[in-house]
Every structure is written in structure tokens, then in C-alpha cells.
């Protein structure tokens, strides 16, 4: 089921004008921002199909920029976010693309901050809901409706067991899980959607596991700081 509960239908509270091109776009931007783990210095946004044709009319650019600053969908600063981004020194380019996309409302976001880099391919599927198709080049499928644990690790026997053991010991239930690897014994990524926000320390424990290269939490339910 693409839509899982009543608040994916009624909601979110949002600034207009479009749930798919504004609210969904904020969320895709926020996923990218949280994957990077800090405020980006530079962003390149590729827009596909309906996003490419109509982004300027829907404020999709403002919405994605708002997400890059970790704004929520109903943040009243969204209409003026480009000035804010400029004053923070965040350089954003928007490029309509004619390439193939997984969905009519798709965006690929690349972010840089120092030596950090993050890349997200996401689609806005209606009503402010999104589907993430790729994180840092790994094919995944997740909704970001739940707190997400994103782990980059080596493809080794038993690694998933050791990760899920930490999650289980933290008392967190796993709702959905997705694993992709570049090849046998190569780099792999695991995305775990959790029923509740993880307790403090869980992320650190996962980062310390052997064969784990990096781990991040993406949680769009968290309210970002309002000015």
C-alpha cells in the first residue's frame, strides 16, 4: 500500500499551492538535507517531467530550498526561502531535465558541504507523500513517513543481524527494510523504517559496528527550529 494511514490522506498542514509540487518537494529536500547531515553549501537540483514543466509556477524551487534548510511543510518562511539561502551562502541551481524518471514528479538532489556529499532521487506521489528511489546511488524504496535509519556498510555475512540486534535491543520495532548492494562483498546500503524515533545512543552503537561505514537518521516528523 502506497498510502498507509489516514494522515497521508488528510494532511499535511502546509503552505500552498501544491501538495505534490510544494509539500512533497519540501520533504524530498529535507531527506537530502538530513542524509547529508548538515547544512549544504552547494546544491544541484534536477527536475523531471511535471516538476520540470511547472516547477516555477508551483514554488517547487522554494519548497526544495526550504527542505534543504530543514523547514517543515507548513513553515511560513518558505515563500522567502531563496533570500535566506542566499544570505547563508547556500548556492542552489535548478535544472529541468528531459531524462527518464521513476515518476512524473521527480527530483534528483545533489548536495555538497566540505568533503561531504549526498544524493537523493525522490518522487512526489500526491497529497504531500513521497517515495525515495535512490540514496547516494543505492536503489532503495522508502516513504520517509517513519523515522529512517540509513546505513552504509560492507556486504558481509551477518551484518544485517548485528544491525537489527542493536535496533531490537534499543526497543525499536522495524516497520520496513530495504537492502541494496553494488555487488557481492562490495558496498551496501540498508534502510530501516522504524515505528518510533530511536533512543539516544542507538545511532552511535550502529556506527561502531564492524563493517559499518556510516549511519544517519532521517526523521521528517521532527519539527525543525522556527525563526
Amino acid at each position, binding site marked *: *500500500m*502506497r*498510502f*498507509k*494511514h*489516514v*494522515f*497521508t*490522506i*488528510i*494532511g*499535511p*498542514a*502546509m*503552505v*500552498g*499551492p*501544491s*501538495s*505534490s*509540487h*510544494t*509539500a512533497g518537494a519540501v520533504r524530498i529536500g529535507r531527506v537530502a538535507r538530513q542524509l547529508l547531515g548538515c547544512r549544504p553549501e552547494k546544491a544541484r537540483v534536477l527536475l523531471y*517531467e*511535471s516538476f520540470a*514543466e*511547472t*516547477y*516555477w*509556477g*508551483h*514554488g517547487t524551487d522554494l519548497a526544495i530550498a526550504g527542505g534543504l534548510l530543514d523547514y517543515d511543510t*507548513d513553515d*511560513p518562511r*518558505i*515563500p522567502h526561502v531563496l533570500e535566506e539561502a542566499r544570505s547563508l551562502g547556500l548556492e542552489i541551481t535548478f535544472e529541468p531535465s528531459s531524462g527518464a524518471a521513476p*515518476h*512524473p*514528479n521527480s527530483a534528483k538532489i545533489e548536495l555538497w558541504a566540505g568533503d561531504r556529499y549526498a544524493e537523493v532521487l525522490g518522487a*512526489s*506521489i*500526491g*497529497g*504531500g507523500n513521497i517515495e525515495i528511489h535512490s540514496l547516494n546511488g543505492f536503489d532503495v524504496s522508502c516513504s520517509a513517513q517513519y523515522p529512517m535509519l540509513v546505513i552504509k556498510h560492507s556486504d558481509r555475512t551477518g551484518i544485517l543481524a548485528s544491525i537489527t540486534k542493536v535496533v531490537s535491543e534499543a526497543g525499536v520495532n522495524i516497520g520496513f527494510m530495504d537492502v541494496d548492494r553494488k555487488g557481492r562483498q562490495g558496498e551496501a546500503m540498508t534502510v530501516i523504517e522504524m*515505528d*518510533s524515533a530511536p533512543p539516544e545512543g542507538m545511532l552511535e552503537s550502529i556506527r561502531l559496528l564492524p563493517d559499518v561505514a556510516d549511519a544517519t537518521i532521517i526523521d521528517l516528523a521532527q519539527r525543525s527550529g522556527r525563526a
Partner: protein
Amino acid sequence: MRFQTLRQLVELCRSESTTVARLMIEEQVKETGETREQVIRQMAEYYQTMKEAVRRGIEQPTASRSGLTGGDAGRVASFAASGDPSSGREASTAMAYALAVSEVNASMGRVVATPTAGSCGIIPGVFVSSQERFGWPDEKLVEGLFCAGAIGYVIANNSSISGAEGGCQAEVGSAIGMAAGALVEMRGGSPEQAMHAVGLALKNTLGLICDPVAGLVEIPCIVRNGLGAVNALAAADMALAGVRSVIPSDEVIGVMLSVGRAMPREHRETALGGLAQTPTGRKLTEQLRARKRSGSDEQKEPVQP
């Protein structure tokens, strides 16, 4: 969720002697692990946001960011109050409120997606006007939103609520079906009657294309919200009167999906067809593009049709 179709939803309500709204509240509690109070509080907040948007749209008419639209909610509200509207005062008030919320949305104001922002006027238009008319307490309307949500959940998972996927039938059409079904239940109709209202309403929007001028959620989206609220009232009345959707509502939802898939790309929110590509639609688009190129993003002078 224990239901995936409207038929299953009605069967569950029947076997558990409950309403669609109450069943949805229970299912939501199970799905999210939140308490009943938390779930209801969240919906109550959304209802307050909807009421604020109605009030703002009626009391402070604002032009949209593009300058293409604004003020129609106030026009219709005045006409409803002082004139003798052909659709009756109640229907034209619902229409005014739906226009109001859609105008707030177009000005980048705060709304609730129901199920989307493009269709965010219909449910508040029907709900807030019905609340005033029948003197219902907020709690009843909040419950009604769960009924609307249950209907939308079935439509979204079996068809679509995205204009880019399925055209305007998926957005405005879904919202009309949700509002109609919920209104039937709030007025004391059975779950079965509520489901018939959904089918009756959706039949009238099958094939509706998504063709926003300049890609903006303004023309024709705003007036479609106003007209959609009236359609919802009419479909609810038909169902309460005992009219049945001979083609079962689940099958109508299936038709919405297949029609949406067959719809050309030009008519799925790309602004490459329909009203967006009329001579006037193209002219307005060009004027807005010129303004965008000149760098004055904040609109000063309205674009003149």
C-alpha cells in the same frame, strides 16, 4: 488497515455495528501505535487550520502570488448573503468557502491537503458550511474527517490522488467523493449510503483533466474547488434520498485508474494541454515567464488576461 476496498469497509462497519469514522479511528490507532486521544487531537488541529483558512479567505481577500486570481470567494459570499443564488444560500456558501481556502492556498498561505492542496477547498467548504447550517459541534466534524480519510485511503491506494498521475479526477474528483461520503455519514446515513455517495460523485468527474494555466494551482483549480463543493452536496443528497451507484463505487474507482493511465501526458499537470494551451492560457503563461526572466519574482503588477 483491515480494509482495502469500500466494500470491505462497509462489511466491517456492518459486522461491528459501527460507523466508517469510528472504524477509521480504531484502525489509525492500530496502524500508528498512537493513542485514540493523540489521533483525534491531530485531526482536530487540522480542522482548526481548515476553519482558519476559510475565515482568512473570506475576510482578507488576497491576490495569488502570480496575481492571476483572488477575490472570487468574497464575491460569491456577498452574492450568497445578499442575493438570491440559484443554487440556494447553503450551496453557494459552501462554494464561497471552498473558493476561499483555494485562494489562500494560491497565495502560499497555510492549508491542509485534503487529499491534496489543489483540491484543498472542497472538504473545508462542505464541512464548515454544514457545521454552521446544522449547528454541529467541532467533534462531529473532526470525526467526519476520519470518514473522509477512510474513503480517500481506498481511492489513493486503488487509483490515485495525484494530478500528475491521474489528472484532476484524482484530486478534485477524490475530494468530492470524500466530502460527499462523509457528509452522508454526518447526516445520519448508513455506511452503505455513504459509499454510494462516493460512486455517484466520482462518476461525475471521471475523465477530468489536469490542465493548470502556467502550471499554477489557480486556473481552473480554484473554481473547480468551488463547483466541487456543490457537487459533493448534491451527491450526498442523492445518496441520502436512496439513490444507489449501480456501478459499485469500487469499480468506479477502478475506472478512474484506467482513465488516468490512458490520459495523455499533456493532460496530467504538465500545463502542456487543455486550458493551459488555449490562446489566453498561453498568453498568460508568456507574461508570467517574462516577469520571471526580468527577475521580479514578487508580483507587483497583476498580469492582465
